[in-house]
């Protein structure tokens, strides 16, 4: 940049400031606060976590180095295996539904009608309101004795006796999935709506003139153009859902009979609940390869889109 060369001539009495004229020094000083905080509270704990997971530390007892014993132990732990399966099931099912419903809602919102801004603002509420607090509302709605959902279904003649939403091991996971979808759909809808709005309506019109039916117009025009946004939204959501803690912790606490544990809640139960710190750290870290894979996919995808 020519300007940089010129600015050296300008009289600048304080050497410290002149040093900031050099882009490298300026960049270094601007990045320092971020580097310190992230280093201290992400990189360092990550390193500590890896070390911790290879010891036998419990609350109050400094453990010894035991190698991969903790990982071996959780590998043979049937509750851990259930929680791995649960995590994948939970992530997969909710993502499919959130994407489908979110896309539908985005399409409904992608036209002009009165009160659109208001509707859009209200729709985001489930995503804004602290998750723990809205989850309590769901827990109360799922209460076996006082459930308004049961009352409604009964009045509509769909059920004849109560449904034990969270107490039945076969049903509890489904209930949790419903709440997660409820919370996630607004995020998908609003992000996809932003994506839809960048697509020129002329393309739709051109396709319509060429005789494409609405479904064909969606599949051959809208969907390919929306795909980049969709991919990023899905990958974000997958990471969030995969590491979800709050919903399960509030709704079931991993029960009944450990049927609804995810990686996160099981790590919490073992690490904090039981005090087996090293084993809890091992369970958390067991999540890392999957997260890493998702992040790599996301980075590769973003790079591909950017270079295209």
């Amino acid at each position: 940049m020519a300007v940089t060369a010129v600015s050296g001539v300008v009289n600048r009495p304080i050497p410290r400031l002149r040093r900031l004229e050099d882009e490298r020094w300026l960049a270094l000083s601007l990045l320092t606060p971020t580097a310190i905080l992230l280093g201290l509270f992400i990189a360092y704990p990550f390193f500590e976590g890896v070390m911790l997971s290879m010891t036998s530390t419990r609350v109050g007892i400094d453990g010894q180095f035991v190698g991969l014993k903790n990982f071996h132990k959780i590998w043979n732990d049937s509750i851990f295996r259930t929680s791995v399966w649960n995590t994948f099931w939970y992530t997969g099912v909710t993502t499919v539904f959130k994407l489908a419903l979110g896309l539908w809602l985005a399409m409904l919102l992608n036209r002009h009608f009165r009160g659109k801004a208001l509707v859009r603002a209200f729709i985001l509420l489930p995503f804004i309101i602290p998750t723990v607090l809205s989850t309590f509302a769901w827990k109360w709605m799922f209460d076996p004795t006082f459930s308004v959902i049961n009352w409604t279904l009964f009045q509509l003649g769909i059920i004849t006796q109560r449904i034990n939403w969270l107490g039945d091991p076969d049903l509890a996971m489904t209930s949790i999935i419903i709440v997660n979808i409820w919370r996630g759909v607004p995020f998908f809808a609003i992000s996809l709506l932003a994506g839809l709005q960048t697509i020129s309506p002329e393309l739709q019109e051109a396709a319509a003139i060429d005789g494409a039916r609405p479904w064909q117009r969606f599949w051959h025009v809208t969907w390919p153009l929306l795909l980049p946004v969709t991919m990023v939204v899905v990958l974000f959501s997958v990471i969030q859902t995969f590491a979800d803690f709050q919903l399960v912790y509030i709704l079931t606490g991993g029960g009944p009979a450990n049927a609804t544990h995810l990686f996160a809640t099981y790590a919490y139960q073992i690490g904090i609940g039981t005090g087996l710190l090293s084993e809890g750290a091992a369970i958390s870290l067991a999540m890392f390869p999957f997260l890493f894979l998702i992040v790599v996919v996301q980075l590769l995808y973003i790079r591909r889109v950017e270079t295209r």
Partner: protein
Amino acid sequence: MIEGAVWRKWVFYNIPLILFVFILLFPFYWMIITTFRPDGELYRPWNAVNYQPFWTNNPTLDHILYLFEETSFGRWMVNTMFIAAVSTVISLFCGVLAGYALARLNFPYAGGLGTAIFVTYLVPQILLFIPLAEIIRNYRLGDTPWALILTYPTFLIPFCTWLMMGYFKAIPKELEECARIDGASRFKAMIYIILPVAVPGIMSAGIFAFTLSWNEFLYALVFLSSPEQKTVPVGVTSELIRGDVFFWGPLMAGALLGSIPVAIVYSFFVEHYVSGLTGSVKG
């Protein structure tokens, strides 16, 4: 766009939209109605004859009073507000500077650093909470607001940085160059020329960061222990459930009141929030 009968518009657009809005908002209605419902009505089984789900004829403020008289709810609100505000300010400060450096300066490893920050953006709290709890304890920060004020930026800074990078990239280079030709230093050009233009982006990042820290649960649950230090989500969870007994009235009142600050901030800045949300996704 829609040709044909009015009923079509209703069946394909209006009715589904109304259903969506109804389902998305119903739990909040339920929260509100439970807050004002007296206990006698609250604990009436759903299959009782006089179960009256959607309305109450005897509204009461008992649950809200209970919250303020029997628990430290007021304290929790203040704590949450303080922690959210300070960690947002710290994160904005770091994120704006880092975002500027990564978006507009040429220096070695800029691309690699940008990727590294993006990756930390995706590190969930659950991956680190156990070793972090140990570290917090070793620094003697446990059970103080600083445990959260210093750790929340770990997920807020990457987000702010990422969002600000997008904003800074969109500001034309000529703006800065003009200022520099007029004799401003690099640093001054950044402070006086670029930052004011980026204010909408800073607002979005700030609002988003504020709601994220208000929402955070796991770190607050693990790092805080005494009742008067807690944040709203943790306080409500640990103090209004005793064993198997749920105090549903106060619980819903707490959930409602605890949501209000976020809802207010959100309602004033909906547009900023939405652009923050979509900006974070666009990357």
